[in-house]
């Protein structure tokens, strides 16, 4: 689970969604995924290795991601993850869901 700075709990299963979203633009290795999520959330979300890799592998097993070994920017072999078509569909569905959820929560909270 991504850790939060500040209070409140994160909705379960969001890490998967965040990973898919991060990989939607380009294929990245695990470390880059973590860095991307953290920087884009302006360090509100912190991704721990203990959660990141199980999530990546789970998504790969589920067929939402594929992977290949490539040479990284530091000239080392690294495992790059890429969204599959199924992953893209899954992300789309998840995003819609998420948006609806956020809206609903916002409405409740604002009353």
């Amino acid at each position, binding site marked *: 689970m991504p850790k939060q700075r500040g209070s409140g709990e994160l909705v379960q299963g969001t890490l998967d969604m965040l990973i898919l979203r991060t990989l939607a633009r380009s294929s990245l*290795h695990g*470390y880059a995924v973590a*860095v991307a999520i953290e920087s884009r959330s302006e360090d509100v979300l912190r991704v721990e290795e*203990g959660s990141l*890799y199980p999530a990546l592998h789970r998504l790969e*097993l589920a067929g939402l991601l594929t992977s290949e070994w490539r040479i990284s920017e530091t000239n080392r*072999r690294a*495992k790059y993850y890429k969204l599959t078509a199924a992953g893209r569909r899954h992300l789309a569905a998840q995003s819609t869901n998420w948006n609806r959820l956020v809206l609903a929560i916002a409405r409740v909270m604002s009353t």
Partner: protein
Amino acid sequence: MRWWLKIRKRRLLDRDLREEIAFHRAMRARDAANSETYGRPFGNETQIREELHDMWTFVSIETAWRDACYTLRGLRRNLGFTIIAILTLAIGIGANTAVFSVVNSVLLKPLPYPKAEELVSVRHTAPGAPGISVVAGGLGVWSSTMYFTYAEQNRSFQALGVWNRGTVAVTGLGEPEQVRSVSVSDGVLESLGVPPVLGRLLGPADQKPGGPETVMLSYGYWQRHFGGDRSVAGRSVTVDSRLRQIVGVMPEGFRIVDVEPDLIVPFAFDRNRALLPGYPLPCVARLKPGISMQQASADLARLIPIWMYSWPAAPGINPKAWEKWRITPTLRPLKQDVVGNLSDILWVVMGTIAIVMVIACANVANLLLVRAEARQQELTIRTALGAARGQIVRALLLESVLLGLLGGAIGMGFAYAGLHLLLSQGPANLPRLHEISMDARTLAFTLVLSVVSGLLLGLLPALKYGGPGILAGLRAAGRTVSVSRERHHARNVLVVTQIAMSLVLLVSAGLMIRTFQAMRTIEPGFTHPEQLQTLRISLPPSLARAPQQVTRRENDIVEKLAAIPGVASVGFGSEVPMEGLGQTVQVIYPEGRVYPRGETPPLRVFKVVSPEFFQTLGTRLAAGREPTWTDLYGRRPVALISENLAREVWGAPSAALGKRFVEVPGTPWQEVIGVVQDIYENGVQEKAPEIVYLPAAMPTATFVIRTVRAGTKGFLDQVRQAVWSVDASLPLASVQTMQEIYDQSMARTSFTLVMLAIAGAMALLLGIVGIYGVISYAVSQRRREIGIRLALGAEPRAVRRMVVRQGLILAGIGVVLGLAAAGGLMQFLKSLLYGISTLDPLTYAAVPLVLFLAAGIASYVPARSAATVDPVQALREE
């Protein structure tokens, strides 16, 4: 296939996971130099890797495999324990598998005919007929006329026919040969539904009297005599001196009910001369689809009056009288005809072998308990290190199941060997013997038995040591104290169970031994059967047609046989006792006895005998004399009767002499000239029937020769020469000694006896081992206590007595429980017992004694070692 790939890939996977995480760490280390954010420590790398690894692999198989390897290592470390446990289980499972494969093949598998569940046999009861019980094996169809009525007018059967076993002489194909034959009416082969391998089946046209005479060959006969020549159909063979045309060949192994004939010949009933009563024949029929046996019985019952009044009765018989007999058709599955009363025996044997299995399991369970106790520290430590309760239970169960499976695998080997032993020792007349094999169902049985017994075995230690409070073990195991009663409880219960079950088995074996004894003490009606040679000879009509000619020829044969050196006397009859060829029954009307109109006298067994027949057999004459050749040549109207018949009708054997009777009112009287000892025709366990013996010669007879040389090859050669000196075309059939016939009649009892004795011996042995194991373990646990006792001045004798008493108390409880169980269970044995009650006092007294003695010896050995404990040593040990 995915799981397989997963397993295969595991090496590669491991490398990748390491590399991926290493990369991550390297990247982070690089960035950590620039930013404090990434200075935090990396998570537990091993745990992450294991988690990913588990994700990619088939976890349950892997852990199971790992556990199995661990268990196997554990078993190998305790080789002695493992071997004993596996062998005990293997013997139990092997014995059960062997017996189950017999039960499966004989009782469970359908008969080898297409849609065998539709096949039934038709029999009749006649509760109103006096003396009907003399008919051994019940009545099939009463006569050819009944067959005609049934076959032509029933509404329930696809086909129905009558058949009969017999032998026929085949001449013209090398040496004259007497071969097994079955006569069939139309409908028999059609019912059985097995197509011929060559030619055609016998059909309605073949049974027309005066039509072309035909025959079918068995596969074996076709191979032996025609070398499998496919042009055999259409050729002819001489059967009982008549030329018959071969129309077809049946496939290999084809049987008609329980007979595997060489030749199948059609009946040729003459409709115009057929009478109401006749010769009873077995009947086989195939139900129409959807018709139940009850419906079919009702259908046939409807036909009984039609039959009774549409055929001419024999002279002197009033069909009205038959109405009182209440002739009722009863149908039963054909399989029951084939298997007969063997099913009782087999289920009893299966039951006893199952008990042996339970006893064997109790022994192994005891071993496992001891082992679990020894492992208690290990288990406690595993629990302390975080093993879940489920994992401990799983480890214990896995071990016992593994033992079960190993035992089962070796047991299959034992079963295979045991089956051969069983088949070679089993009764030769065991039905479906040739079908016995270990098939898929047997394998499944063995597998289930192995796994289930393994699970049950493991359950006890698992419940005991997988439970909460296991940590207490760590404290207790530090210093051995005398084991509490509670900890011995489970083992004591097991031993008591074992003793009780051994007692049940020993009692059943004891009862069988007593039955056998009781049967042996009965005078069967003949003496020294090992000195009696029997053989069957059939005179073809070409050799002797008129009764005088038959008498002449047979007189010749008797004289030639009597002239062989070493022969004391020779006789012949329609059959010898217990030969089981099927009996003729008939009524007699004693002179001066009036039967009210509409009543018939009881049925009696009729036999035909020669002069010196009884003298040869060793049957005592109670009064009068044996027939002479003069009686035979003169065809004098004389007869002999059995003692029980004489007593029933005339009060005493001597009173019967000179009395007269008729078979059919209005025919000449027959005078009783002799009364002979009762003969147990149907085996000694059946009541001796009332028999009328008519002196006469008949074309087919069983000869009996008294000689000490009976059964030797030299003698049989001389017999053959003697018979062939009368006529070279005469074949000899059913050459056997009376002892063989006698043994055969007791084969089922002796088979059961042997099986139960084996089971009983196994049970006793396992029981002794069980007691020994428990007592010696208890002694080893109490070494310290015993040492203190001895140090305080206890006599070694008193220590011995204390230990032996413990064993005897266990045995005593087991014996009491076992006696109670045996009293109830022996009811199942009732049909197999003879001459003794199921509560035979001698057996019930002797068996507990034997068990006590065995228990005493088994606990004396550890008792002696207990008494020699060195107190100093025992106390210092810990």
